[in-house]
């Protein structure tokens, strides 16, 4: 089987005092063995909720998977009991969080935190686990691992802490690694180190990566495929080249053109006017319609289906319908043209 992970029409809602927030609405995704897929979007687009849904990390009392299935090697994760899920979480699918400061336990030595998963999932003895933990620290580029293994998180710098988090995530050789904004809290020069490390590790271990980010630069650096999320839905998906060089959805155009480019000198950035939709009361039609300069009546009334651009490239936009007027993306969105 080629697809290691497959999401089919997943809907997730949160129950709040104000009502039901439909954070993820009909997301379908697939992840192939050993590939890296990026999910891009702004805050509130549902990208983190999607990843937490896969890991079943959402609060049980207030959230609900309303519909859809998440197939991991053919097993539907939404139907597993908590006990069964615990066996997968951290061993077959693991996760790296944004802030290494809060995702490590400050009262436990780094070594103990790495060994925790190894002892639980792989039944290693203490000494075996320790040896493996030292090797892992070496793998993620931490000098003097024999000494550092006995230190606490506060004795590490931000970049080093994120390396420790990566070591923990990779401890049990997971098949899928979900990285939720792994470099957002880091400085650019440290970010470059971590991205380098992740690319290197992916080649060595063959782990499939889901990268969640809002930074298109990081996507271009690390991923083979991209899914662009907006208002709880996937608006465009394709290989990185397709989405960057031949974007089809106006939101993708907006994202690409609102970033200043180092090699051009445009005086004004093309900003996307307005703000993202409120998912407490999501719009009936396309979620981007209210901010879209090309919006038509049909966009407001009906949600567009994903149409195929190529066999790997899909976009959910009425402009791709054969009856729609032909619209060219704004010049600022053409990444290739800027070179």
């Amino acid at each position, binding site marked *: 089987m080629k697809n290691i992970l497959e999401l089919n029409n997943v809907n997730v809602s949160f129950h709040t005092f104000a009502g039901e927030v439909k954070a993820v609405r009909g997301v379908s995704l697939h992840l192939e063995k050993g590939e890296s897929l990026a999910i891009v979007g702004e*805050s509130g687009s549902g990208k983190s909720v999607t990843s937490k849904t896969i890991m079943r990390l959402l609060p049980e009392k207030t959230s609900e998977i309303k519909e859809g299935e998440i197939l991991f090697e053919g097993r539907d994760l939404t139907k597993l009991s908590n006990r069964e899920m615990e066996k997968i979480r951290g061993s077959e699918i693991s996760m790296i969080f944004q802030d290494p400061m809060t995702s490590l336990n400050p009262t436990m030595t780094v070594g103990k935190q790495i060994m925790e998963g190894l002892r639980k999932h792989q039944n290693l003895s203490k000494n075996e686990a320790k040896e493996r933990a030292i090797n892992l620290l070496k793998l993620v580029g931490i000098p003097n691992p024999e000494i550092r293994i006995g230190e606490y998180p506060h004795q590490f710098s931000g970049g080093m802490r994120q390396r420790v988090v990566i070591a923990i995530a990779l401890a049990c050789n997971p098949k899928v690694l979900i990285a939720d904004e792994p470099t957002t809290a880091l400085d650019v020069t440290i970010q470059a180190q971590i991205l380098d490390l992740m690319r290197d590790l992916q080649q060595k271990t063959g782990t499939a990566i889901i990268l969640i980010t809002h930074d298109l630069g990081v996507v271009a650096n690390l991923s083979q495929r991209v899914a662009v999320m907006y208002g709880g839905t996937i608006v465009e998906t394709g290989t990185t080249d397709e989405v960057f060089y031949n974007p089809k959805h106006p939101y993708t155009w907006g994202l*690409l053109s609102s970033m200043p480019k180092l090699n051009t000198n445009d005086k004004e950035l093309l900003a996307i006017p307005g703000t993202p939709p409120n998912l407490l009361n999501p719009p009936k039609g396309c979620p981007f319609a209210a901010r879209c300069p090309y919006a038509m009546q049909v966009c407001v009334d009906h949600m567009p289906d994903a149409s195929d651009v190529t066999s790997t490239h899909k976009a959910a936009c009425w402009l791709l319908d054969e009856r729609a007027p032909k619209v060219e993306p704004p010049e600022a969105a053409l*990444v290739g043209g800027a070179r």
Partner: protein
Amino acid sequence: MAVVEREKLLEVKNLKKHFNVGKNAVLKAVDDVSFDIYKGETLGLVGESGCGKSTTGRTIIRLYEATAGNVSYEGVDVHGKKSKKELKSFNRKMQMIFQDPYASLNPRMTIKDIIAEGIDIHGLAKNDKERMERVYELLETVGLNRAHASRYPHEFSGGQRQRIGIARALAVDPDFIIADEPISALDVSIQAQVVNLMMKLQKERGLTYLFIAHDLSMVKHISDRVGVMYLGNIVELAESDELYEEPLHPYTQALLSAIPVPDPEVERSRERIILEGDIPSPISPPSGCRFRTRCPHAMDVCASAVPKWQEAREGHWVACHLYDNDLNNENKQ
């Protein structure tokens, strides 16, 4: 560029800001920084966290008392002793926009009171009607509307809050605004809105900005000149195009090469300069050049002597031994 003819608005000379961090330890957050800001320009200040860029901004506006050195605004010393009245008139000329739009607005005040606080303090409105008119005008200037005036901060999104922060800064008609990471808490599409607004206001009102940020591509976009800071020092300062096209300092080069570009082809083919290690602690910085511990070109002299701040090319200043002419001549002989 005719740098020489332009009028200096702000002059920062050998500015130092040290913090006592207990047990005779001193954290040198800003250590001997000098630069000028000309009227109507935007000076960008970039660097990684802990490099002292925010402290520099805060010391300039007198939120922190300077340890040494001076800042003069239109020839007047900012840090000198001032009567309340003098301080007040000075505060009107210089304003600040803060990073976190969630923390910088008082949650218990309505938007109109937040914006009008400066107007009230400086007595810029004769009566309530005039006060409200100014508030409405400011709200419209920053792209909000009248109806927003009586709401509270929690009712607004991050981008809208940052607009309120800008309106508050503009309320007293300042000439100079220090923007400390004004967009880093915002989403990409909203960042562009706020940057466009700031540039529009600058054109309309002839404002001068000190724009502090860690996002180099945004800084390049908005700034006329850019200074790069590392561990309390400015290591390079130049026109923004020049700095990005021909960075001289090894740190600037590494910083520029580390930014991921949203272009897969470029990313695949690019050779990165990846710096080793982390930023040293500013409590005990390395001797000589502070960057030497991570610098790929470090020489013996870098450990012993602090590099001079010199003009390597016209308008392009750098502090690095690689561009030290005396030294290079010696080496040739």
